[in-house]
C-alpha cells in the first residue's frame, strides 16, 4: 500500500509541475499576475509532497519491505539501519527521487524570497525550475519508479508499477544488499553533497535564463544568485573532496583521484563554476564580461546535466558502475533542448549584454581575473577532450581510444601551477587603475610603469619566504623540478595572502586604535567576500601541498612476507606479525594482518590491513594507514598470490604530505562560510557607480 501511495504522490507532483509550467506561461503572456502567483504556490507544494514520497521510500527501506524492487536491490537484512536509510541514494531510481526532493527544497527557498524588485523574473525562474523538476520526476514516473513491486505471474517474477493480470505479490526473503564498496561513511555523504552542488546550480541558471528572456541584462540576476552560486559551489567542492577521501580509504590503490570519466564529469562544472565566481566580480565592479558570465553560468548547468547523463546512460564506461537503464534517450532530449534553447537565447540577447567598462591595463585586477578564467577554461578544455575523445575516436577510426591520467596530468599540471601563482599575485592588483584617456599618452605609460613597480614593491617582502622555501627544499635534496616550482609557488602565494591580511589589519588597527586581532576580525567582517575568498585560497594552497606531495613523491613497493619478515620503505620498516581469518557478523570473510611499524629501530604503531570478501564474492581491500602531517604510510594486504597465515603479499605506499589535502579542505569550507554568510543586501550603488573615486593604488 505504502508503495502505491508513494507512486501516487510522484505522479501528483509530476502533474503539478506540468501545471506550474502552464500557469507561469499563461500568466506571463496573458499578463495575469494571479496565474503567475498560482504557479508560485504550486511550486511551493512540490517540496512537502516530495518530502512525503522520500519519507515513504525511506520507511520502506528501513523496514526492509523486499516486495519493493528498489528496497530489494539496495538493502539486505544484515545491514545496519543507518545504511538502510542512506541506501535511498544507493541506486538509480532512489537517487533520482532524492535529487528531485533536494531540488524542490532549493526552488522552494528561492520562491519564498522577496520578489518585489524582480517581478519580471518570477515567471521565468518558475518555468526553468519546473521544467527541470518535471523532467526528473518524469524519469521517476515513466522509467525508474522506485516504488515498483515484484509480482509473480505465469511468466515468472518481475517488477511492475501496477498489478499485472493474474499477478500475485512476491516478496523475496532477503535483499541483494548495497554494494559493499558503498558501505563507507564517505560514500554516505559524498553523493548528497554532489547532488546538492548540482541541484543548486539550477537556481543561477534559472535566473540567467530569466534575465535573457526578459532582457533585463544588468547585473541584477548576478546579485540575486551570487550566494546561491557560492553555496552550490561549496557543496560541489565538498562532494569532490569526499569522493577522493572515499577512494583513498576504500579502493585500495593508494590514490584519491584517478581521472575517471565520472570524476571529470563532476569536476568540469566545478571548473566553470569557479571561473564564474571570479568573473562575476568583474561584472559587479566594472560592468564588463557580461557575455562571458552568461556563458559560464549556462555552461556550468549544461555540464552538470551533461555529466550526469554521460555517466548514467552507459555512454562512457567507468569504475563508477551505475545501473544501465532506459533513461538515456530521455536525458538526451532534455540535454539537447537545454543546449539549443540556451544558445539561441544567448545569441538573441547578445547585443544587450554589452560591457560598460573597458580593460585598461594588463596588470589590472580585471585582466588577471580574465587570465584566471582562461586558465580554468584551458583545464576544462583538456578535461572535456579527454572525456569525449573515446566517442570521437570511435567515430573517426573505429577504435575507442581512452586517455589516461598521464594525459590529464601533463596537460593540466602547468595550468594548475599557473593558477596557484595567479592566486597569489592577483590580490595585489587594483581594479582598472589607469583611465583610458591617459593610456594613449606618455603620462599613461608612465602610470602603467609606476603601477607595475608598485606591485613589485608589494611583492618583495612576501617573496622572501618563497625564496627561503626554495633554498630549504634544495638543501633537503629535492631535485624534482616540478615539485620545486610547485612548492615555491605555494610558498609565495601563502605568504602574499597572509601578508595581505597582516597589512590590512595593521592599517586598521593603527587607524582605529584597535587591538590587531580585533582589527583583523572586524576587517574580515566588513568585507566578507574578499577575506572569505582569501581564506578559501589558503585552503586551496594547503590542498595543493597535499597534491604535490602525493603526486611527486609517492613511493611504493610490493613483496610477499613470511611471518617476522619486513619491508622497508622511506625510512619505515613494516613487519608482518600475524594473520587472522574470520567471518564478520554481516557475513563477509575478513582476512586481517597485524603489522608492526618501526622507524629508526623504534616501534611506532600497529597497522591492520584487511581483505574482505562479501557474501556475493565481491572483494574489498581496506588499507592500514598511519597518518601524520608529514606523510601517510599506507599498507595493503593484496590477494594477489593467495594469502596464507605463513606468507602473505603486501603493498606499501609512502604518501608524503597527503594529509594537507584533507586539512586544506576544512579551511576551504571555513572560507566559504565566511564569504557566503548572509548580510544586508546593499540597496544600490555598486562600486563602479562611484565614478568619481580617485585612481586606485596597487593593493587597494
Amino acid at each position: 500500500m505504502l508503495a502505491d501511495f508513494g507512486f501516487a504522490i510522484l505522479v501528483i507532483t509530476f502533474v503539478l509541475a506540468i501545471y506550474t509550467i502552464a500557469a507561469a506561461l499563461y500568466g506571463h503572456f496573458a499578463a495575469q499576475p494571479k496565474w503567475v502567483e498560482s504557479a508560485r504556490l504550486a511550486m511551493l507544494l512540490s517540496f512537502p509532497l516530495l518530502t512525503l514520497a522520500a519519507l515513504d521510500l525511506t520507511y520502506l527501506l528501513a523496514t526492509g519491505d523486499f516486495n519493493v524492487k528498489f528496497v530489494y536491490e539496495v538493502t539486505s537484512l544484515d545491514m545496519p539501519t543507518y545504511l538502510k536509510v542512506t541506501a535511498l541514494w544507493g541506486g538509480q531510481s532512489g537517487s533520482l527521487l532524492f535529487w528531485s526532493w533536494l531540488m524542490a527544497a532549493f526552488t522552494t527557498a528561492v520562491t519564498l524570497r522577496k520578489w518585489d524588485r524582480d517581478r519580471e523574473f518570477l515567471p521565468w525562474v518558475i518555468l526553468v525550475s519546473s521544467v527541470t523538476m518535471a523532467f526528473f520526476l518524469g524519469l521517476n514516473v515513466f522509467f525508474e519508479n522506485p516504488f515498483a513491486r515484484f509480482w509473480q505471474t505465469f511468466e515468472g517474477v518481475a517488477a511492475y508499477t501496477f498489478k499485472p493480470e493474474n499477478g500475485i505479490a512476491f516478496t523475496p526473503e532477503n535483499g541483494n544488499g548495497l554494494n559493499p564498496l558503498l558501505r563507507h561513511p564517505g560514500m554516505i555523504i559524498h553523493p548528497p553533497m554532489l547532488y546538492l552542488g548540482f541541484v543548486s546550480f539550477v537556481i543561477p541558471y534559472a535566473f540567467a535564463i530569466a534575465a535573457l528572456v526578459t532582457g533585463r541584462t544588468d547585473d541584477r540576476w548576478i546579485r540575486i544568485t551570487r550566494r546561491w552560486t557560492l553555496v552550490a559551489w561549496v557543496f560541489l567542492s565538498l562532494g569532490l573532496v569526499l569522493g577522493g577521501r572515499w577512494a583513498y580509504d576504500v579502493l585500495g590503490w593508494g590514490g584519491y583521484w584517478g581521472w575517471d570519466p565520472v570524476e571529470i564529469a563532476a569536476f568540469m562544472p566545478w571548473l566553470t563554476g569557479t571561473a564564474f565566481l571570479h568573473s562575476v566580480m568583474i561584472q559587479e565592479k566594472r560592468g564588463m564580461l557580461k557575455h562571458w558570465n552568461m556563458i559560464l553560468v549556462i555552461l556550468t548547468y549544461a555540464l552538470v546535466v551533461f555529466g550526469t547523463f554521460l555517466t548514467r546512460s552507459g555512454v562512457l564506461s567507468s569504475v563508477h558502475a551505475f545501473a544501465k537503464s532506459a533513461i538515456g534517450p530521455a536525458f538526451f532530449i532534455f540535454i539537447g533542448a537545454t543546449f539549443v534553447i540556451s544558445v539561441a537565447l544567448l545569441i538573441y540577447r547578445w547585443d544587450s549584454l554589452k560591457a560598460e567598462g573597458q580593460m585598461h591595463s594588463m596588470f589590472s585586477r580585471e585582466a588577471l581575473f580574465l587570465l584566471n578564467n582562461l586558465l580554468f577554461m584551458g583545464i576544462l578544455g583538456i578535461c572535456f577532450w579527454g572525456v569525449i575523445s573515446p566517442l570521437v575516436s570511435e567515430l573517426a577510426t573505429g577504435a575507442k581510444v581512452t586517455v589516461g591520467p598521464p594525459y590529464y596530468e601533463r596537460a593540466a599540471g602547468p595550468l594548475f601551477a599557473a593558477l596557484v601563482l595567479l592566486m597569489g599575485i592577483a590580490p595585489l592588483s587594483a581594479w582598472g587603475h589607469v583611465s583610458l584617456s591617459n593610456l594613449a599618452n606618455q603620462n599613461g605609460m608612465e602610470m602603467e610603469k609606476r603601477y607595475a613597480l608598485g606591485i613589485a614593491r608589494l611583492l618583495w617582502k612576501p617573496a622572501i619566504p618563497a625564496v627561503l622555501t626554495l633554498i630549504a627544499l634544495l638543501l633537503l635534496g629535492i631535485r624534482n623540478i616540478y615539485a620545486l616550482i610547485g612548492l615555491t609557488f605555494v610558498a609565495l602565494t601563502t605568504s602574499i595572502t597572509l601578508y595581505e591580511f597582516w597589512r590590512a589589519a595593521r592599517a586598521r588597527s593603527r587607524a582605529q586604535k584597535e587591538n590587531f586581532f580585533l582589527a583583523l576580525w572586524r576587517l574580515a567582517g566588513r568585507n566578507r567576500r574578499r577575506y572569505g575568498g582569501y581564506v578559501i585560497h589558503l585552503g586551496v594552497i594547503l590542498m595543493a601541498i597535499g597534491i604535490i606531495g602525493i603526486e611527486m613523491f609517492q613511493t611504493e613497493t610490493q613483496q610477499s612476507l613470511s611471518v617476522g619478515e619486513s619491508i622497508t620503505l622511506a625510512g619505515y620498516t613494516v613487519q608482518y606479525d600475524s594473520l587472522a581469518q574470520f567471518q564478520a557478523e554481516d557475513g563477509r570473510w575478513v582476512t586481517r594482518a597485524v603489522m608492526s611499524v618501526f622507524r629508526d629501530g623504534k616501534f611506532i604503531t600497529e597497522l591492520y590491513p584487511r581483505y574482505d570478501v562479501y557474501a556475493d564474492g565481491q572483494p574489498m581491500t581496506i588499507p592500514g594507514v598511519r597518518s601524520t602531517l608529514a606523510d601517510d604510510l599506507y599498507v595493503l594486504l593484496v590477494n594477489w598470490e593467495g594469502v596464507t597465515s605463513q606468507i602473505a603479499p603486501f603493498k606499501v605506499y609512502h604518501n608524503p604530505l597527503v594529509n594537507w589535502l584533507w586539512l586544506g579542505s576544512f579551511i576551504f569550507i571555513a572560507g566559504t562560510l565566511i564569504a557566503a554568510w548572509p548580510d544586508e543586501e546593499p540597496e544600490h550603488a555598486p562600486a563602479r557607480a562611484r565614478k568619481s573615486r580617485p585612481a586606485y593604488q596597487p593593493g587597494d
Partner: protein
Amino acid sequence: MTTQPNTAAPRRGVPIWVQVTIWAALLALLAIVAMGLRRAQQGTVQPGDEIPDFTLTLFDGYTYEGKSQVSFAELRGKVVVINFWASWCKPCEQEAADMEAAWRSYQPGGQVVFLGADYVDTEPEARGYLQKFDITYPNGPDLGTKISQFFRIKGVPETYFIDQQGKLVYVQVGPFSSEAQIHAIIDPLLK
C-alpha cells in the same frame, strides 16, 4: 545601450559565421553523443547473431596451429569460446583456473577452440597473469579494442560461445563459478 543614434548598425548581433560555427559545433557534439548512446543502448551482441571475421594476434609464446595469429574464419566448424579478460580484473581471477581446466578437457578432441582476448592491459602484467594461472589456450591482446568493440562488451570478464555455424549461442557476463558451468554450455553444442 548605445547613446549614438546614428550608429551604422544599431543591432549587429552575433556575426552569421560565428552563429553557424556555434550551431555546427553543438550539433556535432549532440550527434557524437547520440551515436555513443545508441551503441550503449544496443548492449552486447545477442545470441543468434552471426559473428563476422576477426583476427586475434597472439602473445609471444602462444600459437594456434603453428601460427601467431588466429583468424575467426578458419575456425568455422568448431565451437569457439572467446573470453575477454584483463590482468587488472579481479573477478577474472576467479574463473581463470576453471577456464583453463575446461580447455584442457576439450583440447584433445579438437572440436572446441578457446581464445583469450586481453582487454585494455599492459603486456608485462598480462604475461604475469597468464603465467600465474598457467593458461595454455591461445591468448592475445585485443589490439585497439577492435574485437571487444565488435562484441560490445560491457566489462570483463565476459565469455562468448559461438557454434559450428558461426552463430553466437550464449553470453556469460561476469565470471564462471565452476568448470561444470562451462561444460554445461559447450557439451550440448557438440552433439
